[in-house]
């Protein structure tokens, strides 16, 4: 295998007394589609939030594309905490799709997608607009460009959220439970878009989800998180049909029971 694009090396994360990640080791290969499943509070979102630089770390090293994310190499080779400049540089690799969409409610759909490319990447308005229109086409919302987020359904909002993240051309796209805030009948349209993206070979995807069938379908690998550690990981077939660990089996039994015939 080549160098991983994401590497967590003994990463520790605490909130006060609560240790959420306890020396987590975790790797993702370039172009790999990885699903993260696990019980509530096991640290799934925290992993994504650390990658998106929304949350710092208390120990260990996170590497993205060979460069430390939360550290910078000093001239003498030692690591020191990252500056905002370094974080900004690193962030260009990553994009995130939020559970609650987090669209900018005061901007039209089009501006939600063009604002960052224009202001941050320095694209011309015309270029940004062109790119946005392509992306809206991709997520099936070409006719909604002039609406405000408040005028869209949850499923539409999330598809705009995906288009907005993609507009920054990230190498790595992070999804934090992208469908769990949606009414059941709207889940499918969002999953279809994510499925389309999964067919792109270059894009590395990290997906926290409760949609087991979907995870099984699109992932190269599934990781079962439990109490800030990867309890078990493997191909979807291995993990879903024949888990080694009792904890995994219990968890799967519980979620599959609770949501029979998960939408996919």
């Amino acid at each position, binding site marked *: 295998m080549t160098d991983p694009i994401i590497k967590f090396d003994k990463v520790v994360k605490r909130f006060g007394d609560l240790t959420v990640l306890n020396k987590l080791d975790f790797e993702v290969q370039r172009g790999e589609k990885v699903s993260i499943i696990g019980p509530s509070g096991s640290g799934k979102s925290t992993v994504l939030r650390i990658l*998106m*630089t*929304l949350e710092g770390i208390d120990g260990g090293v996170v590497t993205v594309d060979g460069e430390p994310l939360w550290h910078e190499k000093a001239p003498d080779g030692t690591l020191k905490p990252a500056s905002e400049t370094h974080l*900004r540089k690193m*962030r*260009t690799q*990553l*994009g*995130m799709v*939020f559970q*609650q969409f*987090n*669209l*900018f*409610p*005061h*901007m039209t759909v089009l501006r939600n997608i063009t*604002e*960052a490319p224009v*202001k*941050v990447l320095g694209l011309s308005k015309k270029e940004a607009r062109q790119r946005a229109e392509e992306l809206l086409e991709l997520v099936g919302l070409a006719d909604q460009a002039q*609406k*405000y987020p*408040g*005028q*869209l359904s949850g499923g539409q909002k999330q598809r705009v959220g995906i288009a*907005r*993240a993609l507009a*920054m051309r990230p190498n790595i796209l992070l999804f934090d439970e992208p469908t769990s805030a949606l009414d059941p009948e709207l889940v499918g349209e969002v999953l279809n878009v994510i499925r389309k993206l999964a067919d792109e070979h270059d894009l590395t995807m990290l997906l926290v989800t409760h949609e087991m069938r979907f995870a099984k379908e699109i992932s190269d690998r599934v990781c079962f998180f439990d109490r800030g550690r990867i309890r078990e990981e493997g191909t979807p077939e291995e993990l879903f049909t024949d888990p080694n660990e009792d904890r995994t089996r219990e968890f799967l039994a519980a979620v599959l029971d609770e949501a029979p015939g998960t939408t996919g």
Partner: protein
Amino acid sequence: MHWTEYFGPLAEGAWVTVQLTVYSTILGAILAFASGIGKLSSNWAIKAVSVAYIEVFRGTSLLVQLFWLYFALPLAGMALGIDLRLPPVMAGVLALGLNIGAYGAEVVRGAIQSVHKDQHEAARALNFTSRQTLWTITIPQAIPEMMPSFGNLAVQNLKDTALVSLISLGDLTFRAEQIRNFTQDSTTIYSMLLVAYFGMALVLTALMRGLEAYVSRWRMAGS
């Protein structure tokens, strides 16, 4: 002097009152944004200046501020060897604007802080700088939040302009006082004066509501 003859001078005064209100409200809004944002700054010097301004002008009385600017400032200037005598209009606009700006600052600060943390996270994920986040994400969303309080402050400011009559500026109240001195017709003149302020306040309130609807268009959309 028949009471219908009061209209001429009162209208002249009302025009001065309108101008005072407009200028001092604009000055107040600028100061409110500057110091409300300044109070949230991570730069301690900016923060200290903002907090000091807000506390001093909220902690003292408007009339004291007006008198200080009009009567005391020139003397302070004299001690420093500079001419700080202000014409009444300047003193009036400055005092009103400084005063209302300090109250507005708290409104601005509160509205900015009320913008949900999710919005900041989305902005960070899209790699906006903190300044870009403030100006393109936070403030545009905070403005509709400020509008109801700004409406109240604008009416407050309109009422406060009456105080400038005490430094002999020819506003609505000043003209009414002149007429009363001349005619002793207190009941009529003060009733007219009250109604005039009431009418102006209603118009101002309607204007502020219109402005509020305008800056909150996106909120009305859909939901």
